[in-house]
């Protein structure tokens, strides 16, 4: 009886446990396909412990938004600065980022459009680089590129057009860098927690940190506004300021705010606008079309109303960044004013002939105006008060390789 009882108990128990086991196994077996996290090892906390970065900007100037996974550190900025000026980052080692982004020109290049290492011209003008951390979108017309860490993959690895032309050569790139004792030391210093910091993630994070350190906030106009130094700008510039912020010229609608562009985001604003505008530069055959290789936002969205819409660039340092517009097609600031005064540019002959002022996609704020010669000169004096001479001479942003030769 005792034995019998025990036996049945065993049976009962065993069937129960196998049931439980079965259930457990099923649970364990259930789709092991849960999305694996990206393989790269981030350790924002570890990086944050590294030496904190101190921003160089006046009191009252908004603080930029920094990606949570790439906090600023002195070591990353230092590594990024070396990479920015290093020609090893291009196919034939003939170009660095600085080849198209020269400090003396607020990191633009003075050319209508640049040519990459394979001899192919870029359809667009090299942009000036400063206050990049505030730009909600990057490049002249792409609305989807929002992070410096990704944008730089275009000059590095892009094919249309090739610029530094390292497409498919990432292993070669890291081989070149690894061979340099300088980079062995600087990659380690910037990413001490990494077994092997020679990765795309770390390279782009360092370069982006350097780019974010390019703050330009010390123009005469900044001293006038932030330091309340009334003598910092001329009377002519003050008259120009009034014109710039007037309903006559409407400039401020698209170039307003602390960074002189309506396209900016910082820690003080929760919502980011990404405006793009057609300013009536072209009107091919009266259809509203822009040249086929530069159709603006339309290129990405295919929406008719996006034809010819480009980002309004910051007008800081504008004196240094000629020629102007997305395709470098306006040579001087005087001609830019004429373009806006006419409410759009008229091209009389050739493949791009057309009356820009009647472009159907043109922004309503580009409606044309009449200014006296003195007023035009005032407007330009104001624009020139936005030049930051200390920025283009800042040793922290200069070529570290040139310095080490000295």
């Amino acid at each position: 009886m005792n034995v019998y009882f025990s036996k049945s108990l065993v049976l009962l128990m065993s069937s129960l446990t196998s049931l439980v086991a079965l259930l457990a196994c099923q649970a364990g077996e259930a789709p092991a396909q849960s999305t694996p996290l990206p393989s790269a090892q981030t350790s924002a906390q570890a990086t944050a412990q590294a030496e904190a970065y101190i921003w160089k900007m006046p009191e009252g100037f908004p603080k930029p938004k920094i990606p949570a996974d790439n906090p600023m550190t002195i070591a990353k900025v230092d590594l990024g600065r070396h990479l920015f000026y290093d020609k090893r980052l291009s196919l034939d080692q003939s170009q660095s980022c600085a080849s198209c982004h020269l400090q003396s020109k607020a990191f633009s290049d003075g050319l209508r459009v640049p040519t990459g290492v394979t001899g192919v011209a870029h359809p667009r003008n090299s942009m000036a680089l400063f206050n990049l951390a505030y730009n909600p979108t990057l490049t002249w017309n792409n609305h989807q590129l929002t992070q410096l860490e990704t944008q730089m993959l275009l000059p590095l690895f892009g094919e249309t057009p090739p610029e530094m032309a390292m497409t498919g050569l990432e292993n070669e790139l890291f081989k070149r860098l690894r061979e340099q004792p300088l980079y062995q030391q600087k990659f380690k210093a910037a990413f001490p927690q990494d077994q092997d910091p020679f990765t795309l993630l770390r390279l782009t994070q360092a370069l982006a940190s350097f780019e974010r350190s390019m703050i330009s906030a010390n123009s005469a106009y900044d001293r006038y506004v932030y330091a309340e130094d009334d003598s910092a700008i001329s009377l002519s510039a003050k008259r120009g300021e009034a014109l710039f912020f007037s309903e006559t010229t409407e400039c401020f609608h698209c170039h307003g705010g602390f960074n002189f562009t309506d396209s900016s985001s910082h820690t003080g604003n929760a919502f980011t606008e990404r405006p793009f505008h057609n300013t009536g530069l072209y009107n091919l055959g009266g259809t509203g079309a822009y040249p086929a290789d530069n159709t603006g936002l339309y290129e990405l969205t295919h929406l008719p109303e996006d034809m010819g819409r480009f980002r309004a660039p910051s007008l800081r340092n504008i004196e240094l960044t000629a020629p102007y517009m997305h395709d470098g097609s306006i040579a001087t600031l005087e001609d830019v004013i004429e373009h806006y005064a006419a409410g759009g540019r008229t091209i009389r002959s050739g493949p791009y002939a057309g009356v820009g002022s009647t472009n159907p996609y043109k922004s309503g704020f580009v409606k044309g105006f009449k200014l006296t010669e003195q007023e035009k000169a005032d407007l330009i004096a104001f624009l020139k008060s936005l030049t930051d001479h200390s920025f283009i001479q800042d040793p922290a942003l200069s070529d570290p390789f040139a310095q080490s030769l000295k």
Partner: protein
Amino acid sequence: MKLHTTLIVSLTSLCVLNACAARQQPEAETQAVKIRFNAAVNGAPFVCGKTYPGVGAKASTLTPRDFRFYVSHVSLIDTQGHKVPVRLNQETPWQHQNVALLDFENGSAGCEGNLETNDVVTGTVPAGQYKGLRFELGVPFELNHQDVNRASSPLNLTSLFWIWRVGYKFARLDFASSGQPQGYTVHLGSTGCGESAMMHGGGDSIARKAPISCSEPNRPDVFLKDFDPNTHHVTADLGVLLAESDIDLNQPETPAGCMSTLDDSDCVGIFKQLGLPFGKAPVGPQRFFRQDL
């Protein structure tokens, strides 16, 4: 009583073991599948360094440079006509989640890229009989707009990044032709992707958003009705892809070849052979892929 307890314990643990073994043995319920791919130019095997006459509408000569493409959502069709997803092996660098890279260029003899090649998709399906194959050409939407700086193999190759389009090149089929000796490129990818941006691992919330959708996803749906993985392979034929295109000419002010842009007339014939809509052109069946013995 003590003895009994021991018995109970040992018996139950045995059962546990048995039960689990039965449930976890994949061989009992699943079978391995291997889908073999070939690359060809009008039926001739694709080889870097070879030249192929008679390609395209104007019978041009083609010299290969690249032949790589991603496939995803690979399924076999069972005898009842049901689509059964192939669970891709995750141990190989050529496959990640439900996407695989096929690579027929070896980085030599005029081909770009790298030495390694891959002509198979491997995985498992529930044991059974199958008679058809279905897959998409491309990287699935969920992976297409990820932060490439954090992507794992095979989605970490810079030559297949399409940064300007905030995604990947689904196919990279590059070559030189008699009339375009500098190169003619066929890059397939999603276009017209809406407001918002590429995803970023740890970026702020604004940067984290992926596109809501793309007006031209451009992922051809490939259905090979009588495909038997044991006897057939999939042939991707560049000659067929280009059959209606004049590869000696390029529309002015557009990149050489077809970069999936709606304004680029060089795409018309190529999209037709892929079975993809292009502007107002009528959509037919895809012809780029076929099954061969």
